[in-house]
Structure formats: structure tokens, C-alpha cells
């Protein structure tokens, strides 16, 4: 089977726009949570979220003008803008710029989103009610469609290979990386730009997740402590936004052009819960089978796993995942480290899986596990080291990243150091 490696990274997170700045702040235990600025949250139950910091582009702030022409920005929803910014970073980082038709046709894009242009759809619905259907912009549909991130990236760079998009709620980013890696393994492409993006921090987005009783509501006075995976006082997830995009490449292709190789996608596993539309199966069976399948694909044993980036959303489901991971690892749970970086950046929904896969890549590179912040009083006594409130410098050769989504859709990725 052809091997797939990661040669480019791009991040837009609530900590910063940019890979290194996001990573540094994550390791420092910072939180991206604050009172919502992008709309007046006084009518919704949750008034805080992890928003991408906006600014002039300096000090890790996100400035749309750095990534898209102003006249193009009007034609896309924010989720596409975040996806473009992360994709541009990843492509630049990889140094891959195909110059022949053949190379362009062997380079594809698979970027997904959980919800896509939710706010654009909401605003257009209001516009129709107030002013009638003739006022609907010709850019409404291409601004809101989820696969238009892949479309925009392909148009910008002339990538003419497979052009696809994933929509599996909070598993989107992980599924996109796993599925894109398989396209390379099967020979449909040599290079794939893959990941997820999301921008659902809007009144309709918050109201919708509030109605599902999924969001934290009790920490308006101290939002930075609201996302607290595994902690006894957690009361729901904190919504995040942003994008994580990687450049995946066939190993020999990357070697031949002398590319910087970060890590290898060793395994990928998928499963369905067949249980409930928003809650995970109580025995964690779906997540367990996804992890087991990913390990089997990688040809590894549970004891080979050094670090797990958990789905860990800061909801009741945290302990279900924890139990499933400990069941998988057995005695190896005593030596592995697992953390939930959602404690710092919140839950980026469709972008979560790919952002967290990038954190795994950086954990491998720097031999350090990022912390689970706000973990002051664990709800259960874990066998695993959950890296409470402090990063953990340790050997990491193999990392596993979990993503579980509404509808009972699970994805696990195994990412490891490249062995020659």
C-alpha cells in the first residue's frame, strides 16, 4: 500500500491565526474563550465562545485581507474564509506548487465543514422575509455550500485532481484527512489538501446548540474556565471556530522533491453508533471500534500509542470516551498521555478533527503533549495521564486522534513519526 505523509500545516484557531502561534499558546495553557463579540449574545443562553481573534494580522490576529481580496470576501461565508486562510498556509508550508498539467491533475482538495454557511443562510432568510426573494444575492448559494471551500482552493491554485468535501458533523475534519489519505493510497492523487473549517458562532448557531442542551451556560462570569473536559463541574461544550488544513502527500513523491515531512498517516478507522442523534452510545462502543480499526490499519498494538488527543468536549460524554480508551489500551493506559485541547480552543465542530490532528503532528515533532486546562477536580479517577493544567514533555512516536459527531459518526486517526 502506498504510504501517505503530512508535508504542510495550516491553522486558524481561537488562540491565533497561524500554526506556530496557536501551538505556543496551546502549550502555555491559554484559553480562547471570551464573551461573544461577533453578535450581541444577550438573547441566547450562552453568551461566550472561543472566537478567532480579529485584527490587523499582527500578533496572531486574523485579518481577512491577508487571505482574500476584499471584493472576493463579500462572496463567501466566514467558514470559507477560515478554510482559505488555513489552506493557503498549508500549501505555502508544503512548498508544493505544481507547474505541469499532470501535476495539477494529481493534486486534489477535500475540505469539509460541519454546518457550512449557517449564518449566511439565516441572514438570507431574514432578507427574503423583509425585502422579498428578488434581493437574494447571486453569491448566496456559492457562499453557503460546504464543498465551495474545496472549490475555492482548487480555483486559486489550479489543483485539478479529486475535488470533494466531507460533512460528518464534529468528525468532519478527521474523516476528511482519513478519506483524502485513502485517495492517495489508491492512486487517485499524489497530493491532497485536506481538513475542515467552521464558523457557526452566530445567534442561530448558539441558539440551536443551546436547544440541544449541548453548550456550557453557567460560566458567563468566567468564560475561560468554561471548557473543562473530565472535570466534575463541566456543564457542556464551548463553541469554537476556525480551520485546520493539512497537505497530504504520497511518501515517495514527498521524498523525491525533498519536501519537509512532518509525520505519517499510519491508520484510519471509522464506525457508526446506530444509537442516538446527539448522544454517544453509553458503552462507548462506537468510539472503541473506530480506534481499534485505526490501530489495525496501522498494524500497531494499543501499547504503541504514546499520546491521545481526545474528542473530550467538556460534556457528559467525556467519561464514556475515557472508559473506551482505557478499555482499548488495557495496562498500557498507565503509561500513555491523553489530553483534550478543546479545553483551550473550545469545540471547532467540523474543524475539530483536523485542528487536533495538526496538534498531534506538532506533539510528535516537539515531543510534548499539550495540557487539558481547567481540569481541577476529575469526575472519575483516570488510569490515563490527562495532562491536567500542564503540558507533558515525553516520548511521542505514535499519536491517536479521536473525533465523534452527532448522528453517531466516529473517526480515529493514527499519526506517527516517519520511519525510513
Amino acid at each position, binding site marked *: 500500500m502506498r504510504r501517505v505523509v503530512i508535508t504542510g500545516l495550516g491553522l486558524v484557531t481561537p488562540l491565533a491565526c497561524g500554526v506556530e502561534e496557536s501551538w505556543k499558546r496551546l502549550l502555555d495553557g491559554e484559553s480562547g474563550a471570551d464573551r461573544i463579540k461577533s453578535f450581541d449574545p444577550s438573547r441566547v443562553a450562552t453568551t461566550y465562545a472561543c472566537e478567532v481573534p480579529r485584527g490587523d494580522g499582527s500578533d496572531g490576529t486574523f485579518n481577512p485581507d491577508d487571505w482574500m*481580496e*476584499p*471584493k472576493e470576501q463579500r*462572496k463567501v461565508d466566514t467558514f470559507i474564509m477560515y478554510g482559505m486562510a488555513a489552506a493557503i498556509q498549508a500549501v505555502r508550508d508544503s512548498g508544493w506548487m505544481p507547474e505541469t498539467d499532470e501535476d495539477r491533475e494529481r493534486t486534489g482538495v477535500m475540505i469539509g465543514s460541519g454546518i457550512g454557511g449557517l449564518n449566511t443562510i439565516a441572514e438570507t432568510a431574514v432578507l427574503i422575509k423583509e425585502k422579498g426573494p*428578488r*434581493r437574494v*444575492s*447571486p*453569491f448566496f448559494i*456559492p457562499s453557503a455550500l460546504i464543498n465551495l471551500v474545496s472549490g475555492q482552493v482548487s480555483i486559486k491554485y489550479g489543483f485539478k485532481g479529486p475535488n470533494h468535501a466531507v460533512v460528518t458533523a464534529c468528525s468532519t475534519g478527521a474523516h476528511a484527512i482519513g478519506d483524502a489519505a485513502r485517495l492517495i493510497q489508491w492512486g487517485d492523487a499524489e497530493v491532497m489538501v485536506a481538513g475542515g473549517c467552521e464558523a457557526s458562532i452566530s445567534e442561530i448557531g448558539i441558539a440551536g446548540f443551546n436547544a440541544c442542551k449541548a453548550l456550557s451556560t453557567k460560566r458567563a462570569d468566567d468564560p475561560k474556565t468554561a471548557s473543562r473536559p473530565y472535570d466534575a463541574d463541566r456543564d457542556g461544550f464551548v463553541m469554537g471556530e476556525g480551520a485546520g488544513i493539512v497537505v497530504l502527500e504520497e511518501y515517495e513523491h514527498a521524498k523525491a522533491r525533498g519536501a519537509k515531512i512532518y509525520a505519517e498517516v499510519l491508520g484510519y478507522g471509522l464506525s457508526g453508533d446506530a444509537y442516538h442523534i446527539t448522544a454517544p452510545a453509553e458503552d462507548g462502543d462506537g468510539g472503541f471500534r473506530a480506534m481499534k480499526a485505526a490501530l489495525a490499519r496501522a498494524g500497531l498494538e494499543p501499547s504503541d500509542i504514546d499520546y491521545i488527543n481526545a474528542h473530550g468536549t467538556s460534556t457528559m460524554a467525556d467519561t464514556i470516551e475515557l472508559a473506551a480508551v482505557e478499555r482499548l489500551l488495557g495496562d498500557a493506559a498507565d503509561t500513555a498521555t491523553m489530553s483534550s485541547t478543546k479545553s483551550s480552543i473550545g469545540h471547532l465542530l467540523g474543524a475539530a478533527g483536523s485542528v487536533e490532528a495538526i496538534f498531534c503532528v506538532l506533539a510528535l515533532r516537539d515531543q510534548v503533549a499539550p495540557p487539558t486546562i481547567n481540569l481541577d477536580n476529575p469526575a472519575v479517577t483516570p488510569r490515563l495521564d490527562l495532562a491536567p493544567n500542564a503540558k507533558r514533555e515525553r516520548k511521542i512516536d505514535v499519536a491517536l486522534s479521536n473525533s465523534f459527531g452527532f448522528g453517531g459518526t466516529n473517526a480515529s486517526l493514527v499519526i506517527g513519526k516517519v520511519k525510513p
Partner: protein
Amino acid sequence: MSDIADRVKKIVVEHLGVEEEKVTESASFIDDLGADSLDTVELVMAFEEEFGIEIPDDAAETIQTFGDAVKYIKEAQ
């Protein structure tokens, strides 16, 4: 230049991101100012909004240049 022409030019400059000097009487939105078919639909909507008029689809198709737009709007008002 008339007030209408100024207002039309402002809309064209904003929507298409072009320099004001390029928006001449005979400048074609698509051939000279870089618009695509969706941009022209949006331009016509912006004219409707700005001038409080309704431009039917068959009339919109005849508005190809800056001059066409100014002429149509003057007659419609």
C-alpha cells in the same frame, strides 16, 4: 458628470474592485472590468437598491457597459 453617473460609478468601483479611471462610458463590465455573470447580476441588484427602481431581467441583459447602466437608470427615473 451627472449625479446618477457618479453614484453608478461608485457602485461599480466598490463591487468590482476596479480603479475609478477604468470605469469609462464604453467600459464593458465583463470584457473590461473583470466581472463574471454573477457579478453582473449583483451589480444590477445594487443599481435597483440605490435608485429605488426595478430592472426586469430582459432589460438587465442589455446593460453591458457603464454607459448602458447610466442611460437606463436616467430613463427609468
